[in-house]
């Protein structure tokens, strides 16, 4: 089934094609996911009361796709999901973003979306208690909380009238991220789930799955929530937490597992991350070899088995 010569030059396009064909074989006689192109009419089976979801519009009473992708139906809601697009925010999403600029009482945060998101001074926890007035002095000291270029974990709080996003970090688990590694994948690969702060104790790492496709990996801290910085108790220190070589290796292994899953277009969940890391340890794969053809084949066959089980 997988006919890639080992040691061949890594070509992700080829492998994705191989992955697609091997997944096709698993579906067997099951009905295939319907795929539409831009401008195609989506069959609504003559029912009147369908709801128009993302990626669709109504033309002459017919539901028409505005993007190319897979049709998803949830009860009466019909929407089209694309393979890749910019991140579209939803209320309560956990995100990883980068501070781009400080203007007035707000930070502008790049969240890989259509517009830069806004984190207002009133939406962060300042040192020295939660119930506190925001003074002009706090405004001048905003750089001591988040600087330009800082990575932060936040949550979507609300939307403005033009669709831009307001964020907040009013919880100890959100805040500045340090002492870890960032991996970027397509945001469609990260489904919304109950937990986005995931301690993977078996691997010795903590993972933050940002809904916008940014994933943060740090060494596991026992007992503490995954977010590193706790802004409420102590002022921000720029001292990086010390990390042993073993912990670094664990972080790199997890990060490479995420990159491999991202390259193959396999959805990222705690289970797939753990399985991929364990497979690489079991097979004795070196860290740098995790993104090469032979190991990607292992991941594909693993995913094929997982889908057969479902």
């Amino acid at each position: 089934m997988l006919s890639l010569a080992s040691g061949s030059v890594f070509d992700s396009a080829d492998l994705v094609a191989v992955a697609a064909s091997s997944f096709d074989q698993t579906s067997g006689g099951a009905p295939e996911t319907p795929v539409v192109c831009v401008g195609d009419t989506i069959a609504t089976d003559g029912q009147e009361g369908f709801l128009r979801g993302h990626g669709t519009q109504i033309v002459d009473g017919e539901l028409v796709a505005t993007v190319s992708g897979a049709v998803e139906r949830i009860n009466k809601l019909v929407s089209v999901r694309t393979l890749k697009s910019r991140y579209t925010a939803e209320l309560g999403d956990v995100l990883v973003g980068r501070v781009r600029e400080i203007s007035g009482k707000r930070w502008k945060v790049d969240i890989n979306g259509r517009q830069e998101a806004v984190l207002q001074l009133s939406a962060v926890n300042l040192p020295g208690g939660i119930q506190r007035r925001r003074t002009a002095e706090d405004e001048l000291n905003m750089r001591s909380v988040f600087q330009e270029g800082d990575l932060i974990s936040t949550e979507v709080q609300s939307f403005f009238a033009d669709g831009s996003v307001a964020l907040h970090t009013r919880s100890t688990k959100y805040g500045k991220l340090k002492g870890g590694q960032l991996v970027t994948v397509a945001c469609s690969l990260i489904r919304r789930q109950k937990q986005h702060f995931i301690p993977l104790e078996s691997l010795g790492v903590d993972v933050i799955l940002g809904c916008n496709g940014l994933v943060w990996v740090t060494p596991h801290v026992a007992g503490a929530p995954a977010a590193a910085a706790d802004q409420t108790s102590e002022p921000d220190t720029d001292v990086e937490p010390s990390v042993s070589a073993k912990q670094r290796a664990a972080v790199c292994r997890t990060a490479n597992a995420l990159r491999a899953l991202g390259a193959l277009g396999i959805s990222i969940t705690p289970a797939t991350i753990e399985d991929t890391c364990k497979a690489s340890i079991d097979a004795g794969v070196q860290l740098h070899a995790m993104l090469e053809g032979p190991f990607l084949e292992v991941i594909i066959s693993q995913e094929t088995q997982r889908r057969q089980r479902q």
Partner: protein
Amino acid sequence: MQPTAGPGPSSEALAKRSDRTELQLRVLTCERSLLHRADGSAKWSQGQTSVLAAIYGPRLTFAKKEHPETCVVEVLVRPKTRLPGPTERQTESLIRQCVEGVVLTAMHPRTAILVVIQVVQNDGCVMACALNAVAAALVDAGIPMHQNFVSVTSALMPGASVVIDPDLAEEQAAEALVCSACTTCRSWPEASAAQKGPAVLAVYTRGAMPVEDYLTLVELNRQGCERVAQFSVMAAEKSLVGKSR
């Protein structure tokens, strides 16, 4: 392709096609997602002509450029060699109008879409090829659109014959050229039930010709677009099936 003696003034032998008939398109190929920094990219080839298109956005832009209610489209065309000139400006404006015509710009206020086009190889019909590449890249970027579009060029040759999809030698020998972009119309909003088929989105002409010939070329392009649309939809579906899960 016929090994031509180089571009020059029209001669019957030069303009004669050896490997296809006057009403035959060249071989089409389309590759998607070639560039990893862009939100969407595609390489479109028609015979020896090849164009690479990249889409960035919808994303934030300078306050000066943004529009409070719609998404702004910017287009940059880069020729294979030399700096962009007036020809490129013209291609840019045509492409911008086409993209603005199909993308749901009101959905993304205060943002911009940047379209960058690099001509990789020029063997005629660069404008049509660029439009096709942009359409494929828009689909790859997952930007919501009313309709997709395709484009075909045809030429009026000396001696009142017409050819579709001319190569560079034919293009230089031609008396007049018409490049048109049509929607891949499966359901155009304004189309009545009787008039189903590609609707013309934009037309570019070069040279002088009688009105009847112009209409013939536009109709020829429309029929050519139908074929290209079939290919473009097939290519898009092929890239989606199996990966969409």
